[in-house]
């Protein structure tokens, strides 16, 4: 196994419990104990999407602009992408317990540094703490359970990673009302915000520690009862070979999947970013305009669709195959956008149902991608490859809001109103989804020359590089 260093440890004595070799499951260990370990990390780091709760109090307490108060979140998302991309190989080598411990330490320390920053009115410390240090915790935490879950659930990888990645969506649902209640209780001044950050740091450390203690990797050669890799390999894209992270990024399949993820996420963010103003603008000129409270309810409903799509569609991909499920996300997603564009303000139920479908496909796209990577590249370094692929998310995070906001501003300046404000954006999203659909169609099985040599047998083709694999 990669990184299984047997009796020799790379950690000091007090941290030996983090060793990959110390996390091998004992006989009788249930694989259903691994999803709660993964969820304890993802439900915590998903807090990142609830940062907006802290923006207004920070702005008034420290005299910040809206742009400045968004900095910790933006840096956090950038660090998420970078640490997932560059830390993926370390996560594979050191194992999930090490990764979860690093994530817990960084994410909690980020809150503690932020508490100190607000208490001393040194805002740079909040940016450094939550954005830089906490952002490393986000990236390492996001990929920490992926490889382990896929190894425990080779028969249902889509469902397993869907559970964890649904947790990331669920994290904001917990943090948003919880943080708001805490600010109300401690006060929205500098002292109250500092105390709130402090409590967040301590509670999240405690909550995530369950994942650190509970996570286990399966013993070498472990398989679910009655299941063999050959049973999964009947689909054309599913391989029983392994590809290293270094070789994976040299394959066209990796970059096709990068385009698929980037297009799918950009299209989803297109609605998420402007959901509340969009539904209000769309139906402003009708007999039944949408009130502010109802628009907030619409945003909440979209969050529910996003979260549900992660587990439902990802589990469905285990039954119908990864390529087919992405055909659904991208093809049906484009048709739903077209329905919104053509219907305009004619039907509110159609608008809501189509938006829910798009958001469920957005969530499904995130949750299914680790299983797609496993199908194409095997389980060997799937976590590290996933980390590198998440740069598509960072790119989409910039592209999506940029497109929708720029188009809406330009249309407003041109004197348009109602659905016309968004029509151009909707057609851009359709074009992106068609681009993603095409990239998905181009995905073929990985050429054997990229495969790692199988233990004790020559490889079908000479690998470009090997990563010192230990058997």
């Amino acid at each position, binding site marked *: 196994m990669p990184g299984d260093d047997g009796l020799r440890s790379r950690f000091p004595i007090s941290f030996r419990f983090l060793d990959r070799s110390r996390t091998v499951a004992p006989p009788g260990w*249930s694989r259903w104990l691994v999803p709660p370990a993964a969820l304890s990390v993802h439900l915590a780091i998903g807090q990142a999407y609830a940062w907006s709760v802290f923006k207004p109090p920070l702005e008034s307490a420290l005299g910040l602009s809206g742009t400045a108060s968004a900095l910790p979140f933006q840096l956090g998302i950038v660090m998420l992408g970078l640490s997932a991309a560059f830390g993926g190989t370390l996560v594979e080598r050191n194992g999930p317990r090490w990764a979860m411990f690093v994530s817990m330490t960084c994410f909690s320390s980020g809150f503690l540094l932020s508490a100190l920053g607000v208490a001393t009115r040194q805002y740079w410390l909040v940016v450094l703490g939550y954005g830089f240090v906490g952002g490393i915790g986000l990236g390492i935490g996001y990929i920490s359970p992926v490889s382990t879950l896929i190894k425990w659930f080779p028969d249902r990888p889509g469902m397993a990673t869907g559970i964890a990645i649904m947790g990331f969506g669920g994290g904001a649902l917990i943090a948003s009302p919880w943080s708001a209640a805490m600010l109300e209780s401690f006060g929205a001044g500098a002292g109250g915000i500092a105390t709130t950050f402090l409590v967040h740091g301590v509670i999240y450390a405690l909550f995530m520690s369950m994942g650190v203690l509970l996570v286990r990797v399966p013993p070498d050669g472990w398989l679910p009862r009655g299941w063999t890799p050959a049973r999964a390999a009947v689909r054309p894209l599913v391989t029983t070979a392994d590809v290293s992270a270094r070789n994976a990024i040299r394959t066209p399949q990796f970059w096709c999947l990068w385009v698929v993820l980037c297009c799918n996420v950009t299209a989803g963010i297109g609605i998420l970013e402007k959901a509340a103003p969009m539904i209000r603008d769309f139906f402003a000129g009708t007999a039944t305009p949408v009130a502010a409270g*109802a628009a907030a309810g619409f945003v*909440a409903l979209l969050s529910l669709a996003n979260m549900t799509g992660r587990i439902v569609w990802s589990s469905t991909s285990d039954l119908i195959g990864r390529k087919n499920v992405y055909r659904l996300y991208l093809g049906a997603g484009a048709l739903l956008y077209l329905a919104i564009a053509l219907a305009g303000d004619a039907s509110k139920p159609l608008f809501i149902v189509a938006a829910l479908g798009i958001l469920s496909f957005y969530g499904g796209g995130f949750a299914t991608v680790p299983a797609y990577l496993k199908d194409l590249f095997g389980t060997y370094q799937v976590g590290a490859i996933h980390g590198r692929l998440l740069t598509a998310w960072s790119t989409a995070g910039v592209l999506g809001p940029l497109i929708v906001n720029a188009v809406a501003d330009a249309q407003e300046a041109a004197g348009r109103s109602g659905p016309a404000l968004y029509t151009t954006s909707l057609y851009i999203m359709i074009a992106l989804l068609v681009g993603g659909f095409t990239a998905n169609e181009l995905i073929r099985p990985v050429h054997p020359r990229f495969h790692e040599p199988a233990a004790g047998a020559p490889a079908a083709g000479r690998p470009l590089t090997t990563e010192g694999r230990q058997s």
Partner: protein
Amino acid sequence: MTTEDPAATGPHPTGETTGETTGRTAGGGRAVLMAVGWTWVGVPFAYGVWELVRKVAQLFAG
């Protein structure tokens, strides 16, 4: 949910023995661990979903 026995389907590096009593004790301990683990993540998640459902209700009230 199903439980899987790694020892039954693949090799185990530690080669631990599992006597009947030890197995029963471990099985009971794991059932408790399972309940604690899922409750640990399930309760906050249920709180988040409940708060979300309350907000969704505004869409139909508004």
